[in-house]
Each structure stands twice: as C-alpha cells, then as structure tokens.
C-alpha cells in the first residue's frame, strides 16, 4: 500500500529529471545524427535499398542460390528520399544502398558511407576505364558504379506528330503539350534541362543564369501536368501524356508497351548520370553487402541484368557479352558524339540555395 505514493513521487522525480535533461541537451543536439552500429548477428539476411526496376525476382533468387544469403529489396524514387530515410534513422536495416553520383559525394561528406575495402572486391578492373576513377568518387573509394545513362524525353510520336530532337521542342510546342508533359521531380535535372536549353551548364552557379532557367520553366509550366520521376509510365502508355522527361533506364522498353512511344536524347546535350552501390555506416550486414557487390561485379550477372532490366552496364566484359541489338541500342548506349555534349550533375555548393528557392517558387505557384 504505501509503495504507491512513493512510486508516484519517484515517477514524478524521474520525469522531471528526464525533462530537464531533455531541456539541457536541447541546446546542443544534432538533428538526425546517424552513428555507425555494430553489425548484427544475422548475416543470413541482406536488405537492399534501391531504385525501382533495379532488381527482379530472378536476380535475387540467383544471389540466394549462390551465396545462401536471403535478400530483400526495398525501393525509393529519389536520392533525397533515400537520404532522408537514412538520416531520420529509418534505414537501419539496409546494408546496400544505391545513391547516384552527386549523392555519393554528398553522403561521403556527411560521413554516411563506409570506405570500401578493395581487397574484398573482385572485378573492379573489369569496369570501363572512366568508371574506375569517376569524378564523383575517385578510385571508387566509397561506391561501385552499377549503371549509367542519360536523361531525355519519352514521347508519343502519333500524338505529337513530330519528333522532339532538342529541349527547345518543349517550349516551341507548349500549347500543344498543355498538361500533357511531365518533368522529373528533381530540381537539378529539371532546372538543368532549362539551363542547357539556354546554353548554360547543368552545374551553373551564377544566380542570374539560375533565375533565367526558372523564368523559362515558368513559361513552360502550363504544359506541365506534374513533376514526377516514375509515375509517368502507365499514363504515357495509355496515351494520356504526350511527353515525359525521363531517365534512359526507365525509358528503355516503353516501345514494347505502346508502339507509338519513343525515347530521344536532346541533341544539344543532357545530363549523364551514374547510379552506384554503397554501404551505409549503419549497415547491419557488411559481409552480405560485400557478397552482393562481388555478385554484381561478375560479368555474366551484369550482362544478364542489362538484358532483363535494361540499364547500361559500366562493366566492359559484361558489355562485350551483350547481344548486338542491345549493345547497339542508341537509347541505352548513346554515341560518343552525344556523350561528349553531356554533363554530369555535380554538387554546386552555395548555389544549392538558389536552385531550391526557384524550385519551390516553380512548384508552389
């Protein structure tokens, strides 16, 4: 009986202590601070956090057959969502993540990636020369490229009646495109396309150039149905949309679903992206992660993935194994001439604030 008031008092004392502790620590806590964790004992299960369309059941089953490790793939649709999930502590189960080039750099700077032990990796030398030492991650210290591609336009030839050959096409035909066009839900890509159309760099840092790109997009806005990265596909196939800005990896194969659809790489150049695989510092299963990296570095695996999932492999040996129709597919492997005009998106430092501000203005209007 007398224990009850005591425990109530104790409870109050403890909660006051906890509350004041919280108030004190409130002066100096770090928002969403991500710390490395000790590997968990369960090395028989590997969780991947990847882009939609980068794995399929056959690939996961083959990995399990070869290594005995059960593998589960979750998907994200933008680098920012992936980063936010990891930073807010919701990504603790993943041992492999798939950041794109600029995000590798950003996550490395935030201290979120584990440096890779190259002694445990087999086949890095089978990558194409440029991918052995990419600008975003010298010497592949933190990431391994898994696919690369361009950003372009998927369009419905029958509905448009003509072929877009460059970014200009969107502006010239904006009345015909009225709410029949989608742009990527990505400030750097969409603003970058406008920058490129105006003759500037994808990585412009001059506020005036960024402002002009915004003005150009505002002009185009009545034509834009929505900003989306991958929700355009079924509407495009159904004929609801006439054109969609898209990553080449997502666009390959749309012709098979609707024969009117085509993919075009803008003539004046576009962005060139690389998606990679990396190990986050919170990875509970680093052994499984290395097994996965080595699995996808195998030329025959990389080649079969390129065939079934249609994304361009940076693996030279795998490329040589591809059937000719795939290896010569210009959407998947564009010509050197076009590639020379393309740019990789790289961090722009302070100018990020301008991109974000104009992006908010554009999407909120």
């Amino acid at each position, binding site marked *: *009986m007398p224990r*009850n*008031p005591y425990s*109530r008092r104790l409870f109050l004392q403890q909660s006051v202590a906890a509350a004041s502790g919280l108030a004190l620590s*409130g*002066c*100096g*806590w*770090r*928002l*969403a*601070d*991500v710390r490395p964790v000790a590997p968990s004992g369960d090395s028989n299960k590997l969780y991947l956090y990847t882009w939609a369309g980068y794995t399929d059941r056959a690939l996961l089953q083959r990995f399990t057959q070869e290594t005995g490790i059960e593998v589960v793939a979750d998907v994200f649709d*933008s680098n*920012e*969502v992936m*980063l*936010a*999930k990891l*930073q*807010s502590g919701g990504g603790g189960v993943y041992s492999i993540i798939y950041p794109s080039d600029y995000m590798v750099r950003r996550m490395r700077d*935030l201290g979120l990636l584990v440096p890779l032990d190259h002694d445990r990796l087999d086949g890095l030398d089978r990558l194409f020369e440029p991918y052995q030492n990419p600008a975003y991650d010298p010497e592949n210290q933190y990431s391994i490229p898994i696919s690369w591609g361009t950003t372009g336009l998927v369009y419905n030839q029958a509905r448009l009646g003509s072929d877009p050959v460059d970014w200009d096409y969107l502006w010239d035909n904006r009345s015909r495109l009225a*709410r029949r066009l989608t742009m990527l*839900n*990505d*400030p750097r890509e969409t603003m970058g396309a406008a920058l490129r159309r105006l003759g500037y760099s994808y990585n412009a840092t001059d506020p005036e150039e960024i402002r002009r790109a915004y003005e150009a997009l505002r002009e185009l*806005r009545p034509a*834009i*149905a*929505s*900003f989306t990265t991958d929700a355009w596909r079924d*509407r495009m196939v*159904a*004929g*609801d949309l006439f054109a969609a800005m898209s990553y080449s990896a997502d666009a390959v194969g749309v012709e098979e679903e609707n024969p009117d659809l085509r993919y075009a790489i803008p003539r004046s150049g576009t962005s060139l992206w690389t998606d990679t695989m990396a190990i986050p510092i919170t990875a509970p299963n680093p052994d499984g992660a290395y097994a996965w990296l080595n699995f996808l570095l195998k030329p025959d695996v990389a080649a079969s993935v390129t065939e079934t999932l249609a994304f361009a492999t940076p693996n030279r040996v795998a490329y040589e194994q591809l059937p000719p129709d795939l290896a010569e597919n210009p959407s998947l492997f564009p010509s050197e001439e076009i590639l020379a005009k393309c740019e990789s998106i790289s961090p722009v430092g302070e100018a990020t604030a301008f991109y*974000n501000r104009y*992006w*908010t*203005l554009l*999407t*909120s*209007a």
Partner: protein
Amino acid sequence: MTESVSPVPPTPATPEPEERRSRTQGLGPWILLGPPGLWLLLLLVLPVLVIFELSLVPGIRPGDLVNPSGLDNYVEILKPIYLRVILRTVGFAGASTAICLLLGFPVAYWIALMSPRRWRNALVVAFVLPLWTSSLLRSYAWITILRPTGVLNSFLATFGIPQLDLLNQNAAVLIGMSYSFLPYMVLILYSSLEKLDRRLLEAASDLGATPVQAFWQVTVPQSIQGIAAGSLLVFISSLGDFINPELLGGASSMTASRLIYNQFLGATQNWGFGSSLSMVIILAVSAAIALLIRYGDATPKT
C-alpha cells in the same frame, strides 16, 4: 511485554479501511489516466515540442546542430508565394466542406427520416463502406476515372459528349477530397438528424408553414450542431490532406501538406521551415477543434 503489545493493534485498526478507501479513490484516476497520459506525452506532446524547437532553427537540415535562434522560419511563411499556398489549402478545405455538406445533407436526411426503419443501419453501413479501403487506393481509382483516356471520358464518348480534362487540376483535387470525406459528414449528420423531433415538423405544417419554411426554421436549427461538427471535421481533415492533392493535383495544386513533405523528404530539404509550417497547421487545426468542442456540443435550439 504483553502490555506494551496489546494496545497497539486496536488503535490503527479503525482508521485503516478509511485510509485505504481514500487512497484507492485518489489513485483510481491516476491509474486510469496513466497509460493514455503517457501515450499522449510520448507520442504527441514531446514530438510537438521537438517540432517547435526545430521551427526556431533557420534552414536546419539533417546533420546540423540544433540551435534555436529565432522566428525566421515563421517570417518566411509570410512571403507571398507561401501565403498563396496556405490560401489555396484553406480554399480546398472550405470548398470540399461546402460540397460535402450540400451532398451529404440530403442523403443523411433521407436515411434518417424517409428510408424504411429496418434498412437504416444497413444504409449507414453501406455509406461508410468505402472507408474500409485505403485512401491511397481510392485516390488511384480517381486517377483511373478522371484521366484523359479514363473511365469518365470513355463513358462520355459513347454518348458523344465532349471530353473532360480534369486530372492534374484543382477540380480533381476537390472531387477526391469531397469523395474521401463525405462519409464522415453523412455519418455525423445522420446521428444528428436521427434525433430530430418530428412532432415539431407536424406542428409547423399544422400552423401553416410551407415545407421550405419548416426546413429552414425547424429542421436546420435542430441539426445545427451536427452541421457544425460535420463541417469542422471535414474542414480539418481536408486541411491536412496530402494524398489527394499529391496524386490528383499534379503540378497545379501545391498545398501546405505537400509543401511540408517537400521540406522533409523532397528535394528542397529544410526541416526548420517544414517545422514552422507544421506548427501553423497544428495551431489552425487546434483552433478548429476548439470551435468543434465549443459549438459541436451546444444544446439544440428550436
């Protein structure tokens, strides 16, 4: 020894049951309130306090030091572009409330007063049935209906009626929101109209009131609390709705909830600004709930 021991027991024996009763009585509310109180504290009060603290840090992103320094994030909301977003949000909420009231009142009236008594419960259940499916699925269903080559336009085409282009417009958002929240409105109006005193309606018509007069002067005043409660509930729900504007509104319908999402998970990360926007929404919703408590429970005036 016996002398010193024997007088002791009788003395505390009398106050003990008294004391026990008062103690258990004093503890009762604490035991009952404890679990929900703890739940509220941990999952509602503390998170709101954290959001409030973050809202005081300008431009904070994950990994930054939390160092509250002022109201900059709140000043930011006053920029015309954001005020327009808030105005649009309130506009959507107000319009969908009005639509729900206009559509929901006749239905609730019919179920409560005109339908056969034994069917009433079944009718109410039938009306609430859509709530059993995920709101996400219902929004996707509307995409299928409203898209240019969708169900609606195929239907119109068979009758030679001109096509409608509703998706990715404000109209689509309003349709989606009204559809999502109509069942709540009907449910609340029904429970209010069910209690309607029909003798007053008979008396009104005996005294020569036309049906229209009787409706405005007898039915509406009696169900005004249901109308207020239903409207506020729909208004609050639409104010915070994310799925309908996001899926149906496309590029044309940035609302406060979508803006908040973008600050946390979207491309333009700024948790501080997102938090201040959230605080404003929380305040607005709290004010609406206060109104609901104040007027939703008022005694009916006849």
